[in-house]
């Protein structure tokens, strides 16, 4: 009885809903679904963008695994990710905790902590190249004052990646703000009850702050991971005179992909790299989501 008159209404709603989201739906098909499957297809072909793709089976993939620079770029990217991810999480969380204290002038500190992250990325690269210049930069000058011989930073094979990590840590303002909002939404009475029970600062942090923040941590880690897998701009700008240098220490995965595609027009080969990147990041994301049920705490679930 009740179903009858409702049906046209449900249909109308579905039609309206689809109409409203249709811009995205068209965009999704044209700018995401199509290129996604085309990437897979190209990866099995020889293709330079002009002549039509020629099927070569798994040749691109076998070539990939015999390409030392592919391995290097993958290693560099994983190296960056493995250090940047925990360090930036700790830094962002640490800064948020500092700002969450009840002190005067909190707003001013928050502004100072946040501003580096809104500096245009290319401008931050220029600043870091300058202050970390091994010969004329202020950082090595200051180190010199305390009798430390500063390293070559971006111009040293050993230090180029750590320098990029430092640059990344300077710009953690965004996750910091998200953590701060998360911290401020934790009910104060949780801490009060714990304090009455005699829980110390570390205990409260470990057993209240971390669990209550865990959904936000997951969110930030995901964003950070996506950014790490696509790490490009900073390395490209800073090592602009010698891309990937010094040596091959700053060849990052998508930089190599970019070069193969747009410098050498090896579109089949670079598509294989692109699809491989998708597979790796999909695996990592699945593992992350699987593990999240063990460490992410959603208050609504009790």
């Amino acid at each position, binding site marked *: 009885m009740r179903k009858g008159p409702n049906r046209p209404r449900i249909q109308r709603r579905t039609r*309206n*809903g*689809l*109409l*409203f*989201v249709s*811009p*995205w739906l068209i*965009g*999704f098909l044209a*700018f995401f679904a*199509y*290129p*996604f499957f*085309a*990437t897979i297809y190209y990866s099995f072909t020889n293709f330079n*963008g002009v002549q039509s793709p020629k099927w070569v089976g798994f040749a691109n993939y076998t070539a990939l695994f015999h390409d030392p620079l592919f391995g290097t770029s993958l290693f560099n990217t994983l190296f960056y990710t493995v250090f940047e991810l925990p360090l930036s999480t700790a830094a962002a969380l640490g*800064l948020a905790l*500092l700002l969450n*204290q009840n002190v005067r002038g909190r707003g001013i500190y*928050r*502004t*100072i*902590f*946040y*501003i*580096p992250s*809104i*500096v*245009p990325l*290319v*401008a931050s690269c220029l*600043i870091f190249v*300058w*202050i970390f210049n091994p010969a*004329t930069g*202020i950082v090595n*000058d200051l180190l010199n004052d305390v009798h430390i011989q500063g390293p070559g930073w971006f111009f040293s094979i050993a230090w180029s990646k750590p320098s990029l990590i430092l640059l990344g840590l*300077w710009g953690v303002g965004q996750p910091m703000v*998200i953590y701060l*909002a998360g911290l401020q*939404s934790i009910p104060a009475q949780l801490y009060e009850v714990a304090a009455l029970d005699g829980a110390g600062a570390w205990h409260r942090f470990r057993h209240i702050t971390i669990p209550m923040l865990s*959904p*936000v941590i997951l969110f930030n880690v*995901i964003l950070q991971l*996506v950014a790490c*897998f*696509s790490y490009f*701009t900073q390395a*490209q*700008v800073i090592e*602009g*005179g010698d891309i990937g240098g010094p040596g091959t220490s700053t060849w990052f995965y998508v930089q190599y992909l970019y070069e193969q*595609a747009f410098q050498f027009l090896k579109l089949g080969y*670079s*598509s294989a790299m*692109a699809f491989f*990147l*998708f597979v790796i*990041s999909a695996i990592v994301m699945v593992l992350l989501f699987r593990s999240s049920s063990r460490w992410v705490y959603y208050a609504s679930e009790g």
Partner: protein
Amino acid sequence: MSVAINRRTRHKLGASAGKHAVLILVSVVLGFPLLWMALTSLKTNHQALAVPPVWIPHPFVWSNYPDFISAVTFPRFVLNTLMYAATTIVGVCISSSLVAYGFSRIRWRGRDFLFKVMVSTLLIPFFATLIPLFVMYKRFDMVGWYLPLIVPTFLGSSIFSTFLLRQFFMTLPQSVSDAARVDGANEFTIFTRVILPMSKPALATVILFQFVYCWNDYLGPLIYIDNQVWYPVSLGLTLILGTYTTNWPWVMAAACAATLPIVVLFFFAQRTFIAGIAIQGTGDKG
């Protein structure tokens, strides 16, 4: 009694001084690169390279700014960037608000599934779909100018904006839509006449973030813009770094000129900035 209180306040004062000491130290470390940029931009090259370092420029070489600006057609870069930002802002405001409305104010089958699909595309690396896109734009003869970066924004490519607007639309009471519906308004009228006028703060956030995005975007223009005439500020900066590597005051003046508008904008719209970022992390995950 009074001694006890005294001791407690003294203890409090000490703790507060300790907190400030830490906060100030961190502020100095984080603020130093920007300070040094600004100082260097006002020095002579000789002073910039001096050992031991000269802290305060003497004299202040304000002419570094007009000099670097005329050396690299910087105003042109700014103009290109503003054009890029303005067009994509129009695209994002139109398409993201429509899509966000469909994902929040109408209940329909498949809605939540499609929303999840949309959000999950954020997890896919940009480069996983780049190559066929480039081939496609090349075939349509769109490479060389901003069209490949503008067109998608009219088709809901800014998922961040859609997400933000959806979160906002969901906070608006259902009763405002129902009242309009009783008056015979259709969905589109409700969208344009009721929901959009109530959403000015959310739209302001979207506009602000889209502007900052365009101002900072390096990768998009790098891929699609090959003629220096059309360079945005970000590519212009790398041009300056490549051309005037030995003239650090100019390079820092350029970095400063690119940073200043964003920082000024931040001071005027601090609340919008912070709220826009915080909403991402604390909004529900669909």
